[in-house]
């Protein structure tokens, strides 16, 4: 094999080992039945039993868990609610991130490296600790309420922690850099003389932005949206720590199936469905990127 091929093989091997193999284990589990044993599902593949054992094993697998998911509205509602939370927080993140990225791209060259580093800086602290910090800020006796009370903007403390609002704040905060960086990357590459040309031809600054800057930054916007939407969809930590009892998200539902119900087969089925749902936007994203590179 040529050395270049060998290098290409490494990511594929990585993908097969760390994504495909576990995924097949999860699919296999989702077709099994619950049991009181170690591990808590049946059938177990026993290769020592020869061919007969393997056929018996295949025969015992079924789609029962998927019918179970379809029968109980809980799962569909969890998916729906995750979809809404992920979409809305993606849009809010975009609204917050775009001006930041724009300001970064317009900043003087010598400041940029430092400013970009400031965007990445939060990653130096553990994600978990940063989400925990929001508990201290948002709780009834927390920093935010104390501040608002002391300046007299509110007379009673706001209940933000343990509501969906807190979940939105947590997601927007946590994923902001994933939106800022790709948008900044496209804006930075942009040829700013195009704006000058638009203005020379009589376009206002605002319409120049909408007609020139924004369309040119679209690949970055789309990449950022996917980078936020996809992990937000399956998010567990943020709704668990900041959300309340009303917060319904598929990550939490999956946790309950896996830990409280000890129902690994149904939990696996939920995970497979989640993955299938996420494959659709991922494929769309890939297509769009490909088109862009062909056109470019």
């Amino acid at each position: 094999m040529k050395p270049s091929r060998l290098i290409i093989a490494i990511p594929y091997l990585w993908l097969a080992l760390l994504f495909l193999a576990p995924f097949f284990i999860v699919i296999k589990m989702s077709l099994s039945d619950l049991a009181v044993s170690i591990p808590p599902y049946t059938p177990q593949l026993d290769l020592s039993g020869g061919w007969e054992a393997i056929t018996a094993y295949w025969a015992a697998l079924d789609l029962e868990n998927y019918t179970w998911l379809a029968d109980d509205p809980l799962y569909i509602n969890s998916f729906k609610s995750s979809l809404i939370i992920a979409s809305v927080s993606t849009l809010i993140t975009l609204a917050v991130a775009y001006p930041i990225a724009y300001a970064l791209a317009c900043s003087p060259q010598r400041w940029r490296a430092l400013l970009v580093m400031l965007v990445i800086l939060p990653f130096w602290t553990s994600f978990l600790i940063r989400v925990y910090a929001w508990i201290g800020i948002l709780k009834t006796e927390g920093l935010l309420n104390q501040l608002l009370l002391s300046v007299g903007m509110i007379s009673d403390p706001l209940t933000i922690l343990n509501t969906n609002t807190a979940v939105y704040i947590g997601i927007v905060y946590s994923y902001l850099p994933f939106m800022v960086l790709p948008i900044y990357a496209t804006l930075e590459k942009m040829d700013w003389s195009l704006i000058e040309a638009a203005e020379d031809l009589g376009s206002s600054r605002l319409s120049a932005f909408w007609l020139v800057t924004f369309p040119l930054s679209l690949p970055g916007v789309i990449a950022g949206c996917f980078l936020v939407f996809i992990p937000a969809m399956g998010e567990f930590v943020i709704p668990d720590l900041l959300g309340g009892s009303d917060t319904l998200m598929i990550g939490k539902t999956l946790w309950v199936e896996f830990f409280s119900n000890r129902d690994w087969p149904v939990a696996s089925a939920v995970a497979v469905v989640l993955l299938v749902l996420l494959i659709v936007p991922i494929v769309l994203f890939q297509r769009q990127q490909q088109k862009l590179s062909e056109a470019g």
Partner: protein
Amino acid sequence: MKLIGAITAFALAAGAVSFANADDDKVVNVYNWSDYIDEAVLADFEKETGIKVRYDVFDSNELLETKMLAGKSGYDVVVPTGTFLSRQIEAGVFQKLDFSKLPHAGNMWDDVKNVTAIYDPDNAYSVNYMWGTTGIGYNEEKIKEALGDDAPTDSLALFFDPKNIEKLSSCGVHMLDAPTEIIPAALKYLGEDPNTKDPEVIKKAEDVLLAIRPHVLKFHSSEYINALANGDICAAFGWSGDVLQARDRAAEADAGNTIVYKIPKEGALMWFDQMAIPADAPNPELGHKFIDYIMRAYVAAAASNYVNYANGNKAAQGLLDDGVINDPAIYPSTETMKNLYSVTAYPPKVNRVVTRMWTKVKTGQ
């Protein structure tokens, strides 16, 4: 931490990891609840025996159970609660204890052993570490403010009567995220058998819980310690020792929050955390040594003095601090003891009904 657990559990499910190292066989791997031991006990054990203790913690039975069911957890001693222990024994998770290696087993308290036998027949697989009750934790000042002087702080009605909890919702109420603890309490409030396995009777608890769920800020099994201590919430339905920890932290902070724990007059659930050795423990020999060490009277007493939970060690009782042995919230009076009840695990089919009902209670779905 649930999250860490979820990650580890998935990692374990994909490929079990063994911590045991071939060349340092003098290590005992212990997996216990968080905030549940005096570190000095571990240091003394290491000093006396020369065995190193690798000590990890969890905050929910579900987490421990998932690790046990994935197999090859690498632990020599784990501490599940009785209800969970019983079905884990059934799944083949544990090995029988070798009592010839446990010379201090004679210290254990028959009253406790009689109850734990419902989870672990003949107490063959486990010995008691600590036990406690599930009851009412509240902030004295805030409850007075919300409900006046005659607030029913010693009654389940404080939580399960919508009239009361509605008034408390402005200052915040937490409940354990543990259906096996809350549903029996709701049934007790209704005058039903808290240990029932009849889905029809269990359903009755659903109406009670659905009526109060809008007023519960959060169902969570560990956040209430800090939330109570800091005055962020005014009441929590939680575990005795955890509320007492909140009491001590609040007293330390001295910010005008007085935390009290009460066993409801209708009766409270009594639970037992049991030390057991996994069937595939890397070093069961050392596991036995560790359990035997904890069963020494002075060690058990030191542990209880530190964590504010009662233990199942009769010989330790004379060595306990006055503030522990005489605190009715820790060692309830004989009178109160009569009112305590314990529950056994739900059969798998009923368990599904219970957890589905719990999801409905928590999310409204």
